[in-house]
């Protein structure tokens, strides 16, 4: 029956066809089944002359307005973590429901075979991507870092100067920490990101903000990493495009469609990851990280007017008042918490204690 319905794989269909040529009983059964199928076609339905109802037209127009408002369907909604995760989970669950793992390997094998035969680039995809000349940049890509430690007597002026230098050289603050304790030198720790072509000028100006105590620069060549990423990205995009074309053009079995969907999701995830890596790498090259530390030359100040003495007296008086209140509150809380228990025990023990006391007094009186 599956053979008549075209549901057998090619090898099984060939076997069934061969059997059918020789088995009269199966031939008779096949003829009956085909006759029944033809009989079923006697039940014909009159054609529908329905057109798009006003409800459908209104829904279409509403959808069109919504699309125009939002600037197009969020076909990339699944980019969001939630949508991507849910879609992946649904596809995985659907794949498990459709069939067991051995059944899924057949469409997966067909998909891999298709990708292998249609693109030689796929051959190198699973291994480390071989960089292509077309992706090689014209000059080496170097990610630089500079470290500067300065000391200055005018800390606030130096800080303002630093921000001004940053603004003029179109940089930005990656991280900034300022410490200004009383009676201690002020310090500033910052990581600044400055365009690489402005690096030398910016460093020169920053040095003028104080006395340079230490300076260092490092450079890491990332050309190879960048070329690798570009090649892998190109491969990934090609694969994604071929998979999308495959999905559109072919109407195979449901399991094949699911296999293609799984592969597209995986490839898209890889592409996004690589794009993020590439962007990070590009930023590291385009901007130089300046680690700046500025320390103030601190001199202790002798305060002539002890303004803080009155403040200290006041603080002490307030603290004393608070302590008194705190103590009273604790006593009251103690009495409230343990008072009832103490009263009960006192009541229980009062009489025995009194009797004992009286007896002791009697014993203590001299006998006449």
């Amino acid at each position: 029956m599956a053979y008549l319905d075209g549901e057998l794989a090619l090898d099984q269909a060939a076997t069934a066809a061969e059997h059918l040529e020789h088995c009269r009983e199966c031939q008779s059964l096949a003829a009956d089944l085909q006759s029944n199928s033809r009989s079923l076609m006697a039940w014909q339905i009159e054609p529908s002359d329905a057109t798009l109802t006003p409800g459908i037209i209104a829904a279409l127009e509403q959808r069109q307005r919504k699309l125009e408002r939002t600037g197009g369907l969020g076909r990339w909604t699944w980019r969001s973590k939630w949508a991507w995760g849910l879609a992946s989970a649904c596809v995985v669950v659907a794949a498990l429901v459709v069939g067991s793992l051995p059944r899924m390997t057949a469409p997966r094998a067909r998909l891999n075979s298709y990708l292998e035969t249609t693109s030689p680039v796929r051959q190198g995809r699973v291994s480390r991507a071989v960089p292509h000349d077309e992706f090689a940049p014209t000059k080496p890509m170097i990610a630089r870092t500079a470290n500067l430690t300065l000391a200055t007597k005018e800390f606030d002026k130096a800080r303002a100067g630093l921000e001004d230098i940053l603004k003029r050289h179109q940089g930005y603050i990656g991280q900034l920490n300022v410490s200004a304790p009383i009676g201690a030198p002020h310090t500033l720790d910052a990581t600044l990101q400055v365009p690489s072509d402005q690096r030398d000028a910016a460093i020169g100006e920053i040095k003028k903000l104080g006395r340079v105590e230490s300076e260092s620069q490092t450079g890491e060549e990332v050309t190879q990493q960048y070329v690798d990423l570009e090649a892998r990205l190109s491969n990934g995009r090609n694969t994604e495009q071929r998979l999308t074309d495959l999905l559109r053009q072919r109407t195979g079995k449901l399991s094949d469609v699911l296999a293609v969907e799984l592969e597209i999701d995986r490839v898209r995830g890889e592409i996004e990851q690589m794009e993020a890596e590439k962007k990070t790498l590009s930023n590291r090259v385009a901007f130089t990280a300046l680690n700046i530390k500025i320390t103030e030359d601190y001199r202790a100040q002798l305060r002539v007017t002890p303004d803080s003495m009155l403040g200290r007296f006041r603080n002490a008086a307030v603290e004393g008042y608070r302590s008194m209140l705190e103590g009273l509150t604790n006593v009251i809380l103690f009495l409230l918490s343990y008072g009832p228990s103490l009263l009960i025990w006192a009541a229980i023990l009062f009489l025995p204690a009194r009797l004992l006391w009286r007896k002791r007094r009697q014993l203590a009186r001299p006998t006449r």
Partner: protein
Amino acid sequence: MAARGITGIVSSLSDEALILDFQRGSRPAFEELFARYREPLYGFFRRRLDNRERAEDLMQEAFLAVIRATVRHEPRALVRTYLYGIALKLLATERRKKSTKDAPLEAGPEPKVDDASEDSVWVRQAIQKLDVPEREILMLREYEQLSYSEIAELLRLPVNTVRSRLFRSRMALKNHLDPAGKMQNAHD
């Protein structure tokens, strides 16, 4: 892929390409999809309901559901399977409303051509004698032309269950469609 014509849609585009186009806002893509599946969906409902108008209503509701769901639709299955899945849900809702579980094919549709009316009635009666689960699988296979895996997906059954029930239904149908029985019925 063929070039687009004046209307923007060429009938050689696959259903999946049409739904993707419609997701992007192409109304002609939806109209093409409507033109392709209007008759099949109408036939689906018409063979299972006794009311022609209701069958048309449900067919239209199925397409409305497609419009509403397109925003979040992700191509996990064939469009055909997707549409029939919607149709099955609408049918189940319709039957629940009528409070008749597995509504029988009592007053079926009018036969299309007079000289085939007797055969049509005979076939309907034969199908009606089948058990409900087997009947549905048979009709999905014979009239909607769905594959075993699509039927399994829609009815949430294992493929082997679909295969075995289909075989049983066909064997049972073979007996019901026996010409001797047909003659007896005609004389009655």
